[in-house]
């Protein structure tokens, strides 16, 4: 026994673990089998799979109304696939839940959620849930699902898919891609930012942006358009400082960038960088506590709760509306693949209002993230008071005016196809040529 006791014992241990795994697996198999034969009231995934695959979906073609779909036929089932962040990100994923729950209440559909373990398994996971055939609609939240969706969707032509905030190169028949015309909300924010800067006694508004990619180009164009729009009516000479941080996930960088901007005289900062701009919020808070007159603006979700005294506004990218619309289309049987653009007109974009501020403040409170001593109602009251102090009625009037122009189609933003086009539009806007940002005609 030259190899010693350790060798023998370790091999034995290996065998022991193997045996246990096998026993556990067998037990599990048995338990699953049992549950399958007994479960009739709560349809387990496995028991559904076989019946559902025969008739893949509650056929929307034959369903003429929502009542029929929910009343006589089988309950419609929707699966929401979260971004890797999952529930509780107080942004994208939580808004998706908001939309799905509202749809569930309105249409009586059954909503299930799934958070992937990591990005590399998304494709396998999507293929597996598609194969099960038990969902009438599978919704992927965020651009990370784009690749898996483009690969898997064509393999299951009878399965309906939706993806939020991303679109494939070529449209896919059974994949509905919901994207946003970010220029519209950014333009409204631009007007209010310029007015706040004016009232704070400075002439620079800024943005801490993420990566130099198409959605951010659209934000930039809209924001600058709004500032210039305000200028045209008030001649206040507010200028825009736009900074790409190159990251969506680094609050430290966001904070440093914001500090630098504040030092250079920027007094209104718009956060367009996901997690990175949380650092911008911190920088604004510290500067304000040090006596500087600065405020911040959030984006995507209603982020006022984070610091209601200094975050007075958020631009909303209504993931909830996109999710709701996607589910609704399946319920009403008018699901179509291809690209669906959301904007101010169909409620996919907007400015944060009391209802949304409160909703996200409540979510934050549930997670214990609300600033100490504040209730969700406090947050709403504080923000509304700050808004009254900082924003004039004329600015709101301009916002409503532009909003009407956008909704009526009088103002329609151009979407730059490449970087050069984007820079050309920005250059023209800087010169005061507002028409450059719009579709001609």
């Amino acid at each position, binding site marked *: 026994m030259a190899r010693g006791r350790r060798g023998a014992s370790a091999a034995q*241990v290996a065998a022991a*673990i193997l045996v246990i795994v096998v026993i556990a697996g067998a037990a599990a198999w048995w338990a699953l089998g049992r549950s399958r034969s007994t479960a009739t009231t709560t349809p387990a995934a496995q028991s559904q799979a076989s019946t559902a695959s025969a008739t893949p979906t509650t056929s929307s073609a034959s369903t003429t109304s929502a009542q029929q779909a929910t009343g006589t036929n089988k309950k419609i089932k929707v699966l929401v696939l979260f971004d890797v962040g999952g529930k509780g990100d107080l942004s994208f994923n939580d808004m998706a839940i908001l939309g799905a729950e509202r749809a569930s209440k309105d249409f009586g559909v059954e909503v299930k959620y799934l958070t992937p*373990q990591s990005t*590399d398994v998304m494709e396998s996971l999507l293929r597996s849930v598609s194969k099960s055939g038990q969902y009438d609609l599978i919704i992927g939240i965020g651009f990370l699902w784009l690749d898996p969706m483009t690969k898997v969707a064509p393999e299951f032509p009878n399965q309906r898919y939706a993806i939020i905030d991303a679109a494939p190169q070529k449209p896919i028949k059974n994949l509905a891609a919901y994207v946003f015309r970010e220029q519209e909300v950014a333009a409204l924010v631009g007007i209010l930012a310029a007015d706040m800067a004016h009232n704070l006694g400075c002439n620079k508004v800024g943005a801490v942006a993420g*990566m130099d990619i198409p959605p951010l180009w659209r934000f930039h164009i809209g924001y600058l358009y709004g500032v210039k729009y305000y200028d045209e009516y008030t001649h206040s000479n507010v200028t825009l400082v736009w900074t790409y941080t190159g990251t969506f996930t680094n609050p430290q960088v966001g904070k440093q960038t914001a500090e630098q901007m504040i030092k250079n005289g920027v007094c209104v900062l718009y956060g367009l960088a996901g997690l990175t701009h949380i650092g911008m919020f911190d920088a604004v808070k510290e500067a304000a506590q040090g006596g500087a007159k600065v405020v911040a603006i959030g984006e995507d979700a209603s982020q006022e709760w984070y610091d209601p005294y200094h975050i007075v506004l958020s631009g909303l990218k209504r993931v909830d509306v996109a999710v709701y619309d996607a589910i609704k289309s399946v319920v009403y049987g008018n699901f179509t693949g291809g690209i669906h653009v959301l904007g101010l007109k169909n409620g996919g974009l907007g400015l944060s209002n009391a209802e949304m501020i409160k909703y996200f403040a409540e979510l934050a409170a549930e997670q214990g993230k609300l600033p100490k001593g504040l209730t969700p109602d406090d947050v709403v009251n504080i923000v509304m008071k700050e808004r009254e102090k900082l924003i004039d009625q004329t600015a709101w009037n301009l916002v409503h005016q532009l909003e009407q122009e956008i909704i009526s189609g009088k103002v329609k933003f151009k979407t730059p196809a490449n970087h050069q086009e984007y820079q050309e539009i920005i250059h023209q806007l800087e010169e005061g040529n507002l028409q450059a940002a719009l579709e001609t005609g």
Partner: protein
Amino acid sequence: MSLRSRIASETAIVLATLAAGLAVGAAVAAGFHAPPLRVMATMLTSWRSLPDVVAEYSAMLALTGAAFAVPVYAGLFNIGAEGSFQLGALVALWAALKWGGLAAPIALGVAAGALLSGLAGWLRVRLSVNEVLSTIMLNWIVYWLLLYLVATKLEDPYNPQRTLEVPRSSRLPWITIGSTQIPSTIVIAAAVLAVLWVFLRMTRWGLALRFAGANEWTSRTRGVNVGLYRVASMAVAGLLAGLAGAIHILGYSHAIDVIGGAVKGFGYNGIGVALMGRNDPLAIIPAAVLFATLLTGSSLVEPIYGVPKEAGDFIVGVIVVLLAVPEAFRLLSRLRRR
């Protein structure tokens, strides 16, 4: 204690801890008003829905587990499998995009992992830099380098959320068993671990390595170059983790996303696998399979039973920690003696 009774007690410990872990898991599931037995059953049979994911995770965790285990024989604690894994993946991806084929990407990925980890070993031996600290720092350096390159040099202009994909010529084949397909990385991992076991148990160098870790002073006086063996053990660890990263890219994920999710966590989870497998290359294999199965299962229970993924991950954590405790104690007491 006789050998027999040692085996018996070890088996009893594994059985008891596993039972305790499963019981805690069932209790957690019950806390979410989900049927406890069925939740645990779903988690333990996740390979039924996602065979390829379980196979791939098993392969990766077995290799990174071994990357923790090998330096332990030489008395070192290698936390750097994460960094070696990611560097191996990054270099393999780069090489595959540049030259295609399999030889260059795998060789360079493995070499990069070995060099990185070997550096930490060299720092320990030459300059007495604690290898736990240096490997953690190297992990972060690699991580930020990876994120930078993924979003810049390697980015796919048409899919800015990820890098360019590994060309067809550089992809490892998949194995078809009946109607299921699994990546061939699992075969590579099993073969490598078998070779490693033979090396550690049946060769002179393996003996010397274990000797160097067990008693540094005695080894030195008997002519074993302890320093050399320590650096070598770290290099081998890096080699294993680098290989894992390389074949993960070439055989499974084919690209890295901008948040690095495709290559995150394997190294750190490998530590748990090594402890569960009592630091033995063969016992690490079932430990890795168990960990991979549970990890995959934790996201499956969410849509079926409404148990949040966080709760699933918690259950995985409890089971792994309980199974790892005995070996962790053993290692910690060794560390204190050091």
